[in-house]
């Protein structure tokens, strides 16, 4: 299902974080969102998931996401992860996934205990490679494993749009590789949008890249096309060296 963003504006106390962004996010391809710190990447995702108030339109199915509360957006099938993985540390990996799967359960079933593991959850555990750790508290997972768990939570929710905020930041090279493969595996049936700083990672896995700068889209195309774009080179690739050395940096 295509998510169409048109003329999105987000303002914080007079500061324009997103300045008239229009984007088409289509299923079946890995769409990367890049841009220097403060370009508005996370704010864009926040606006699409009800965390930041924006004007304009974000049309998905028949609804405008900008008018909906966060939990309704999730129920509509638009899920997200966070830069700092926020799993429920006290609960086991399995419980985390089970709660995420609650979107598709009748309300009254909340009054029953969880028994065993649904096939869907088992499948997702396999997909994100956490089967062995299903019973462990999520708090003991490594940084990378937490990100996988978050992606797994989106998978059990069966989100058809996944907005991933820097899923590979702080991961080891092998973990990045595994995450890239994972994203590739899940992207054919879904709209997967990834915010990323690491240009190597983007080059390897991106089908489409959108470059944001100062709240505006300045370029869109394949990774190769983006590389050739003069404007992009000026504002972004010019300081790749800096960007790569501080891939874990904060994004506004």
């Amino acid at each position, binding site marked *: 299902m295509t998510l169409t963003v048109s003329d999105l504006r987000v303002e914080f106390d007079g500061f324009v974080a997103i300045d008239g962004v229009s984007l088409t996010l289509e299923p079946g391809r890995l769409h990367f969102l890049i841009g220097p710190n403060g370009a508005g990447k996370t704010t864009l995702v926040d606006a699409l998931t009800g965390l930041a108030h924006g004007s304009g339109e974000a049309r998905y199915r028949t609804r405008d996401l900008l008018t909906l509360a966060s939990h309704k957006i999730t129920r509509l099938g638009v899920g997200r992860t966070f830069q700092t993985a926020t799993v429920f*540390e006290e609960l086991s990996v399995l419980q985390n996934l089970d*709660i995420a799967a609650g979107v598709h359960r009748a309300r009254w079933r909340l*009054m029953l*205990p*969880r028994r065993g593991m649904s096939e869907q959850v088992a499948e997702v555990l396999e997909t994100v490679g956490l089967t062995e750790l299903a019973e462990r508290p999520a708090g003991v997972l490594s940084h990378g494993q937490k990100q996988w768990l978050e992606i797994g939570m989106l998978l059990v*929710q069966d989100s058809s749009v996944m907005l991933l905020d820097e899923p590979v930041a702080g991961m080891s090279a092998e973990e990045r590789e595994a995450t890239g493969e994972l994203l590739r595996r899940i992207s054919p049936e879904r709209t997967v949008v990834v915010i990323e700083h690491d240009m190597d990672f983007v080059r390897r896995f991106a089908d489409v890249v959108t470059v944001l700068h100062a709240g505006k889209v300045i370029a869109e195309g394949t990774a190769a096309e983006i590389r050739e774009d003069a404007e992009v080179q000026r504002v972004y690739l010019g300081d790749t060296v800096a960007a790569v050395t501080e891939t874990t940096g904060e994004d506004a």
Partner: protein
Amino acid sequence: MRLPTLKHAYPYVGWLLLAVALLVLAPAVLSDFRLGLLAKYCCYAIAAVGIGLAWGRGGMLVLGQGLYFGIGAYAMAMHLKLADAGPGGVPDFMALYGDATVPGWWEPLRNGGLALVVILVLPALVAGLLGLAVFKRRIKGAYFAILSQALAAAFAILLVGQVKTTGGANGLNNFQGFFGFALFDPANKRMLYFIAAGILLVSILAMAWLYRTRFGELLVAVRDGEERVRFLGTDPANVKLAAYVIAAVLASIGGALFVPIAGIVSPDDVGVVASIGLLAGVALGGRASLLGPAVGALLIGYAETSLSEAFPGSWSYFQGALFVLVILLLPGGLAQLLGLVRRANVHRGNSVGDHLLRGVPRGEQGETEVTRSASEEAAAR
């Protein structure tokens, strides 16, 4: 499968021990007077079980449960006064302070069945409306705590002001009967004890069930990452609301039973100090554990009585010191102590049931909301 049976059995073994202590041991060894006191502690403990749910599991620092304790207590007291009233049907104190007419809003409570309905439904309504207004607006942490405490304070002040209809600062007392049973009869007092202890045990069992349900897991998830839950398609306000309402109803039941057992209810039993007293037991026992809140409340009640007997007038210092010590040294309460001992004995890895036994969330990283609200809680105390 791992050993879920053994893990899940721990809380039930504890429950069984408590049941034997309350239903067999205590009536056998305690004098009628001491048993009456224990009955009173059981009433506090019932409210504490609810606080364990709302605070321990739901992360809502309910500083004003006296409000709901008071709603149940006053509803029961008003019914008892009406039932006791002589020929004119006017409670004694009304003739004393007022013009000997019963206000209209007292009348429904003349009916015993209706009084019970009020005890169960009114706190649910009040908590439901209040919770809806508060949680939907995302008011939490210290703001919620202060708000709930202010309500308990306002309720107590309101009662003090209404001498003619609520007995004012003296409260309501001198009850003769309880649904047809004479309250001066020791046999009936024992019966009241068994009712209170029984309801306490049943409410703990209900919590054991609730903690195992998906709702219980979701509530913990809301406590540890409220914002995150939104992105799982659930409005955390609804989850918190449910827990808050259940806690309110339990407090009301405790209050209602308190009245015939203590023989009096006054604004002092429902105000700020009483509310914090309820909380102290929960903190001592271990707010997130199953048995902690109830056991803590019973212990606090016992300590209050015995320390007050030994050192008259000094209880509030002990209580304050206890609170500080528990928060500083044992944030998970006595349940944490037990958990430490158990973990030293059993060298098994962490597993699903562990958080049920653990007193309190570990220090969370990355979830600023949680750490902040924890420090807010500490500040609010």
